[in-house]
């Protein structure tokens, strides 16, 4: 069977151990998480939203979704992929070191990708870029050739398209 990539959104109680439960469920079964973001989204109710990307066969992915739902602190689970292509965004900070032509070139490319300079010195820039993860991949690939020395990515935040709310 072919493997597919999925984006799951999981609404959980923001309590100690909840992330370990979610991650442990993947690790214990040998499934891989390619991207993971977690932050409290409702301070009054103490709810966090976990967005995670994983891949597997459709059967395995359906099973993963059910297992997530089985965890006690989980309120709801949505497979955002099943609502059509979800809006997926990521932010990255990229440090590039170099001189002369490399510097000029990195600035030019950053401009094309609408990356912002958030820190600069005589021998470095730090760019901030946000967009679809695949676009960030492309930007990173170019920067790598222009002296990228460090990178930090946030992981994917995602939400389903249209008026419907996937995560109830």
């Amino acid at each position, binding site marked *: 069977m072919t493997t597919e990539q999925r984006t799951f959104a999981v609404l*959980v*109680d*923001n*309590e*100690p*151990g909840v992330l*370990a*439960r979610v991650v*442990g469920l993947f690790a*214990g079964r040998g499934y891989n998480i390619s991207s993971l973001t977690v932050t409290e989204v409702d301070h009054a*109710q*103490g709810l966090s939203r976990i967005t995670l990307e994983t891949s597997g066969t459709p*059967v395995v992915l*359906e*099973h993963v979704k*059910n*297992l997530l*739902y*089985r*965890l*006690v*602190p*989980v*309120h709801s689970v949505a497979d955002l992929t099943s609502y059509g292509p979800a809006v997926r965004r990521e932010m990255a900070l990229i440090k590039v070191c170099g001189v002369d032509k490399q510097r000029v070139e990195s600035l030019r490319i950053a401009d094309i990708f609408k990356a912002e300079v958030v820190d600069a010195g005589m021998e470095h820039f730090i760019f901030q870029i946000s967009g679809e993860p695949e676009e960030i991949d492309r930007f990173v690939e170019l920067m790598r050739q222009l002296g990228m020395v460090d990178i930090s990515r946030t992981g994917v935040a995602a939400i389903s398209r249209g008026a419907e709310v996937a995560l109830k």
Partner: protein
Amino acid sequence: MQSAQADKSEQKLLDEPRCGARIIIDCLQEQGVDVIFGYPGGAVLPLYDEIFKQNEIRHVLVRHEQAAVHAAEGYARSTGRVGVVLVTSGPGATNAVTGLTDALMDSIPVVCLTGQVPSYMIGNDAFQEADTTGITRPCSKHNYLVDQVDQLSEKMHEAFDVARNGRPGPVVIDLPKDVQMAETRVYKTKDQVKRRSFQVVTQPAVEGIEAAIAALSTAKRPIIYAGGGVINSGPQAAMALRQFADMTGMPVTQTLMALGAFPASHKSFLGMLGMHGTYEANLAMYNCDVMLNIGARFDDRITGKLDEFSPNSIKIHCDIDPSSINKSVMVDIPVIGDAGEILNALIAAWKSGGHALDAGAQKKWWAQIDAWRSRDCLAFNQDSGDAEIRPQHAIARLNAAVKGKDVYISTEVGQHQMWAAQYLEFEEPNRWLTSGGLGTMGYGLPAAVGAQVAHPDSLCIDVAGEASILMNIQELSTVMQYRLPVKVFILNNQWMGMVRQWQELLHGERYSESYTDSLPDFVKLAEAFGGKGIRVTKESELDQAIADMIAYDGPVVVDCCVVRNENCFPMIPSGKPHYDMILNDEDKRAKPIEGSGRNMV
């Protein structure tokens, strides 16, 4: 943070502050707990102090924390209530892990209280510190580290709610010593606690029931495949199962976990299915056209080779746990809900629709089933007099002796467990206590302790193997202390019989480390603990030995010496389809098992 925030305003404070340990006892009492299985240690001394000061809750002192959990499981399975365990930090908690995993695999409701080092020392490698919530996260349904005494009552009640509802399971509450000693005036009653994130669907959706009835009512070769969910749902679910089978005339098979849910004496009962199930049950599963799985989970012991599992049937899967659906077998009609509620809905829909199975097709199907039955797959030959006892015969005679009695039977793990499943006839749920999912040797004796504590006047028997019984033999001391008249019936074949059987069938008869040398004298062993020991070696003495065991007013160990090389049949070797059963030793020679099945367990 999460639950019961709304009613905070209504919450009354206690007039006098109480320590955490006392709050825990209060919660247990409010939950109706009458017994705790436990073992003390430094990190739970405040709790033991509170136990000392009260009389409502009994404490049963086991001899190993694993046994505490199994005893709580035996209590829970035989009563339908939540079993409660109390152990200390570090080694107490790690010793409990096998029991917790066992309860998780078999969906048994248990609340396990573990002591923990004081919260300000957590993470410092303090004496007897273990990361209990970390260790038990994958082997509990849920767990808590309560680090504030104000939250204690809420977490306690929530733990019971989680353990008991939905698919039941073990819940661990880790209790730092300082929290047990800290004082609070906050006490939430169980009605004030409701976890928002834990919503269980018990009522099945109408569409699911309609689809199931549409398939079942037009079936030509139907079968009901019942699992432990029917037991967990409660005795009324077993009644409903019987009613549905009666009104439809469908044949019923059961998993190891479900034995007793449907009466063994019922004419529609085909026996247990699966690896050591009956010929008729497995062939009926293979050949059926509509399968109603109620509260079972298509375990690998049941399905055999997956792509040849009941290839031509419409499969209806009723389960309270949505994550069980399509886990291993793809089903056509999933129905999420409580087994009893689903059966009630099926009964109502069958009635109101005025359904009846096609009589001609039924006649043919039953004729086919009777033909399979006539193979008499559990037949064996026992010589009388001085002849050695065959293990099947020993169980069959035990069955005859306890027939009609108020009896609870637990087992260890191995061949004896499978023979017990095959030859004991259970007419009611909650009477059969065995470790199915985890297959834990050492389960049976403590489970019998738990059942006997719950049912002091009933006959409680552990059907054991001589290897398994040594894994928790120390519980004979518990048995003596509480004067529990538990009976241990050992089928002593001097081998780890099930291991020996697999080595014979799958590993060229190379019996690596499966023979137990230097076994103890079980009669003297029983006597050393203060119980009665009986040895029986010949067929002619068997019935008397069993009668003496039952009649004795106290604990008994029977060392029933049986034929050593007996194999447990029928057997579907791992990875084989249902029609590929080995029925007996001649059959075994005719069907050597080749390569691929050896990878499986």
